[in-house]
């Protein structure tokens, strides 16, 4: 993992136009992604993490709207930009996106190998024979620890976990520099989850791939990521190394999130976080977390806290600035 920044997310704000108004799903997100790292984005449903992924990837279709900000990849602006440029040069080749429930993207009438053929034929600029193609795909599949038989199967013959692994293989066949994975293990059991996390680790170590993992399961993230960005109500509230976040969480939400998820081996009573995530049609004034914060001060209720840098950590909270 180098200290090179491969992707810069500069003050991105966006949301959805709905009949009831504009939902401010992502608010002023600033984040740098380091080359070769595994970055976790932790947050619960409605925090905007999936929307952020869509925006970074450039898949911005109505009712999703980009309000302001830009995304730079290797110092070039990729968002906002022309979709044709993204399709031709970026998608699948430089940046790959594995959306939530990717196990369901497969065409039930085609075999797995057909899916690979389609992708390769669309994006490879040179002609390859069917057998050469098969060789390439087989090697990739086996590298990632999948059984060869998978290629000749139809999607419904494979379990959800197997399909998810195939989706990751499909997303990485062209060796992209960054993979964005949205809840890659959420519907799967822990064993499959371990296999998939191992897959990501392998991609990082053997191909120097940068991986962004989005999940609500902060414990799952803790075993595989290098850094974590915590999102709440559309904003990044804390960023830090995995060690810092777990051993010394700064933001009250991070603290509550880590505490409130039961860990195996502990039966001690956990007092959960009260209240609900805010309605993003009408977010609360000041700090978006203030209605549920145990350290809330008067200031928090009407002034948006600034984003503060502490060593190599970032936190957006009035506790840390005057």
């Amino acid at each position: 993992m180098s200290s090179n920044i491969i992707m810069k997310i500069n003050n991105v704000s966006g949301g959805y136009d709905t009949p009831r108004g504009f939902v401010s799903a992502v608010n002023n997100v600033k984040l740098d992604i380091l080359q070769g790292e595994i970055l976790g984005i932790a947050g619960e449903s409605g925090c905007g993490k999936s929307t952020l992924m869509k925006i970074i990837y450039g898949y911005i279709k109505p009712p999703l709207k980009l309000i302001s900000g830009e995304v730079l990849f290797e110092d070039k602006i990729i968002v906002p930009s022309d979709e044709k440029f993204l399709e031709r040069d970026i998608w699948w080749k430089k940046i790959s996106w594995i959306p939530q429930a990717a196990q369901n993207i497969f065409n039930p009438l085609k075999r797995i190998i057909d899916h690979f053929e389609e992708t390769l034929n669309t994006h490879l600029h040179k002609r390859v024979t069917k057998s050469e193609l098969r060789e390439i795909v087989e090697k990739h599949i086996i590298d990632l620890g999948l059984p060869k038989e998978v290629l000749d199967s139809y999607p419904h013959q494979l379990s959800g976990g197997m399909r998810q692994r195939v989706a990751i293989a499909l997303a990485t066949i062209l060796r992209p520099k960054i993979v964005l994975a949205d809840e890659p293990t959420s519907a799967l059991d822990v064993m499959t989850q371990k296999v998939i996390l191992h897959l990501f680790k392998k991609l990082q170590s053997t191909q120097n791939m940068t991986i962004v993992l989005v999940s609500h399961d902060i414990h799952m993230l803790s075993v595989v990521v290098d850094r974590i960005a915590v999102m709440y109500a559309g904003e990044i509230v804390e960023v830090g190394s995995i060690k810092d976040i777990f051993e010394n969480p700064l933001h009250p939400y991070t603290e509550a999130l880590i505490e409130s998820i039961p860990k195996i081996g502990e039966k001690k009573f956990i007092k959960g976080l009260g209240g609900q995530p805010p309605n993003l049609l009408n977010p609360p004034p000041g700090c978006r977390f203030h209605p549920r914060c145990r350290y809330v001060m008067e200031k928090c209720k009407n002034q948006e806290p600034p984003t503060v840098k502490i060593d190599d950590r970032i936190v957006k909270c009035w506790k840390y600035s005057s």
Partner: protein
Amino acid sequence: MNNLIELVNVSKFYGFGLLGISKFPAVDDVSLSIPNKPSIYVLAGESGCGKTTLAKIMLRIVKPDKGKILFKNKDLWKLSKDELKEFYRTIQPVLQDPYDTFNPYEKLEVPLLKTAKKLLGVNDEEARSIVEKVLEMVGLSLDMIMGKRRDELSGGQLQRVSIARSLIPRPKLLITDEPVSMLDASLRVNILNIFRKLRDEEGLAILYITHDLATAYYIGDYIYIMFRGSIIEGGPIEKVISEPLHPYTSALISALPSYEKREIFFKEKVEMKVVELKEFLLKGCKYYYRCPYAQQKCFEEKPPMVKVSSERFVSCWKYVD
């Protein structure tokens, strides 16, 4: 001690392949009983292991192909109308998806009041006070939900209403199928605390079906581990988690992620190369393809249930003889 519900050699087959003619056992010869005492029993296993099918069999939604279910020592499928009503008063479900529990067209107080009137035969006023009481038990009130439809509440709130509904007939057993998996991570523990409270203060028995061992540990007293249609290990939860007997249980526990395990997490690799259906179709031990201790005997014959201590049992050839 009498049992609330008892499963005796229950099997359920589903079809696969062309026209669904070939059959595989989603639930394979399972025997299980839930005694009448305040405890939380966990039924844990991966998705697809058959635990939801087992829950549906216990709730009389699915009829098993082999074996029988005994409620108060009578066959569940041969109950009289009155006995069936007694069943519905004693055992109640809490489903995984709170939005699937309620009809989108109904105002939420309606099914609650109706449940009270139909199952308990009370009048309007009594029904109201019962509903008010159960809502209080889950941290809500009638005012909060009055007039609202299911889509107007959050997942967490709606699941509380669902639990409240199940408490109306004063049941002895709640069968909960992944009751928190659809809720936000930080809100799950609130619902889990409700279950703990129900066990401690109301003396309820709860069957908590889940794939998440961490939440299971937090509230569970006993645990049954299920794999590909069979129950392979059972016992008090602290013992099973700290000293697992079955190789699958060990693998499951070591696959649980936590920050403290970071350094060693990937040291032990998990191999998952076989297509799922093959495992279901094994005549012997279903864990054969993945087990590091697998022998020929494991492939040929299904291991019997071995009692390792007064409360622990395991289905594995390692412990026979």
